[in-house]
């Protein structure tokens, strides 16, 4: 039988991964301070973003994301590997984004990606110390938007 400690760790890490999606989708960027370590490494290059330490990403996100009137980051397939006070996880994300079009109106594009995360147990609970995007599919991306092509 799985031990209570392991069930608790898995539950808390899943909640942290969901919390990240909710922080972005509700545009509550300050919640990210409770998700990442101060020096976390974040790599959004697979979907056209930046790669940097958390403070730089925290500043980059609000203007980069508020361009989009609606979006959500639906996650699933969370696979967690625990190793004492460290953990790693791989999570699938289905990400519909409403993109404004130059002549007016908007279009929904669908991005599929994985998050490869490294996590750390701290005095305040589990935190992400690394999040690297790995691209899967892109559907219905407007011509005016640049998203890097998915490597074959």
């Amino acid at each position, binding site marked *: 039988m799985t031990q209570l400690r392991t069930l608790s760790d898995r*539950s808390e890490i899943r*909640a942290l991964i969901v*919390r990240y999606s*909710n922080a972005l989708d509700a545009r509550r960027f300050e919640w990210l301070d409770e998700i990442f370590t101060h020096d976390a490494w974040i790599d959004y290059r697979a979907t056209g973003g930046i790669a940097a330490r958390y403070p730089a990403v925290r500043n980059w996100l609000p203007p980069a994301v508020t361009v989009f009137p609606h979006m*959500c*980051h639906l996650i*699933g397939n969370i696979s967690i590997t625990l190793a004492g006070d460290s953990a790693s996880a791989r999570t699938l994300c289905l990400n*519909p984004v409403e993109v404004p079009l130059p002549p007016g109106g908007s279009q929904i594009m669908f991005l599929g990606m994985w998050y490869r995360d490294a996590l750390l147990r701290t005095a305040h609970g589990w935190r992400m110390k690394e999040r690297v995007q790995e691209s899967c599919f892109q559907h*219905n991306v407007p011509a005016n938007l640049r998203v890097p092509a998915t490597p074959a």
Partner: protein
Amino acid sequence: MLSLQELSDRAEIEQLIVRYSNSIDQRHWDGLDEVFTPDAYIDYRALGGIDGRYPQVKAWLGPALGNFPHYCHMVGNIEITLNGDRASARTLCINPMDTPLPGGGSQVMFLGLWYNDQFVRTPRGWRMSERIEEGCFQHNVPAHMAIPAA
């Protein structure tokens, strides 16, 4: 470390949220009697539905959803806040709907929404006492369908 009680509460509430989707998608309306409290408040207005107490909404659902040959309500991102015998949750739902077209044939539209829920622990387990929809995205909605803009 989470207690067994908290892990159990979270697992039961997650199951309740999934059971709602399965009852709706299987058109098993009586299954909802085990999901909602008898006087639960439900608000579907964000996607063009009604709001009201559970008995009124249950009676509305069958005819309203009978227009759609196929649909599903895939949920995820369930964020639960426990508070003793009460709880609240926010859940994301991706909802593809097969929509008949006036000229014949059909078209699948994709709706994205959140459920903002309240729960209460009863002698028969956790029940939903409030469910309020919040719109996110709408994709491929047929021109003849009127859905409020998110």
